[in-house]
């Protein structure tokens, strides 16, 4: 009996990501969820700009490549064109979603657009060579902050889930990570819920996944996963930031 194999919604090609990059794990989780919900034929993914720009080569569903940061805007158009049949998700990194695409993200959330966003937060610009991102931690050494990020000069990191949770709009916001087996299973549950919310017509669902970038953090893959535990989770606490349907049940 096969216990574990590559999901059908992930095309059988080698991924271009660096060794130890957790993008691969998150790609697989999204593909597994698409398989389990049986929505491969009607799913449309929106690829971002960044390391995951070539996500369109990996998912076995229709994909659209959006201009930098504009994935939620493209997703809005695709979803509104045929809201009954399409399941639309965007897969965006922190440079895409939290920097250049912040306006699109906030307004899609405020409109409670019925789309699913998978937000990969690795606290650095990976594709362009490790520059400081809006999500880089205070004191974090990057190419453009060689002495560590100084909040006096560069400001403080943007906590996307906390910020969006203040809006009336969004249905579901959760932050998860994939640095060990338990957290991977939890991340899959969150991603599945985000897709299910869209199928049920509930509205805007965003799952923020804390991800490792061993190459640009200058660490081994093992140490990078440890760094998520030691440094990232204390600054970006995991958990559900907003779940309107659960709030309704409580009342």
């Amino acid at each position, binding site marked *: 009996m096969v*216990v574990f194999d*590559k999901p059908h919604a992930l095309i059988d090609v080698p991924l271009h990501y660096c*060794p130890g990059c957790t993008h691969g794990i998150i790609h*697989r989780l999204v593909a597994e969820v698409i398989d389990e919900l049986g929505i491969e034929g009607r799913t449309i993914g929106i690829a971002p700009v960044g390391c995951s720009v070539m996500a369109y080569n990996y998912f076995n569903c229709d994909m659209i490549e959006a201009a930098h940061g504009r994935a939620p805007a493209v997703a809005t158009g695709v979803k509104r064109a045929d809201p009954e049949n399409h399941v639309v998700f965007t897969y965006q990194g922190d440079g895409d979603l939290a920097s250049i695409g912040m306006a699109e993200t906030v307004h899609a959330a405020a409109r409670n657009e019925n789309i699913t966003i998978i937000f990969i937060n690795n606290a650095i610009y990976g594709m362009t060579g490790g520059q400081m991102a809006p999500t880089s931690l205070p004191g974090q050494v990057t190419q453009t902050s060689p002495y560590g990020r100084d909040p006096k000069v560069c400001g403080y990191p943007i906590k996307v889930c906390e910020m969006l949770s203040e809006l009336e709009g969004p249905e579901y916001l959760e932050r998860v990570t994939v640095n060990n*087996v338990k957290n991977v299973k939890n991340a899959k549950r969150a991603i599945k819920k985000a897709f299910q919310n869209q199928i049920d017509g509930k509205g805007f669902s965003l799952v923020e996944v804390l991800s490792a970038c061993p190459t640009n953090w200058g660490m081994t893959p093992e140490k990078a996963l440890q760094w998520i535990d030691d440094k990232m989770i204390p600054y970006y606490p995991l958990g559900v930031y907003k779940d309107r349907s659960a709030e309704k049940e409580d009342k």
Partner: protein
Amino acid sequence: MAKLTFKTDNCKGCGLCVNACPKHLLRIAPDKINKKGHHPAEITDQEACIGCAFCATMCPDCIIKVER
């Protein structure tokens, strides 16, 4: 008995599976090199594998197939 199958040529030798194995059965093969030029992961003792699929869960490149 559990059986692991590796798509060795897609392995990047990151070692995340090695750390995930609760039985410490996996290693990065020091004497092998795959098509990509990485040392691939391999299992040292197939008989002792319990088929928990923790290695496959942590593998970013989805190269491990687990059968039980």
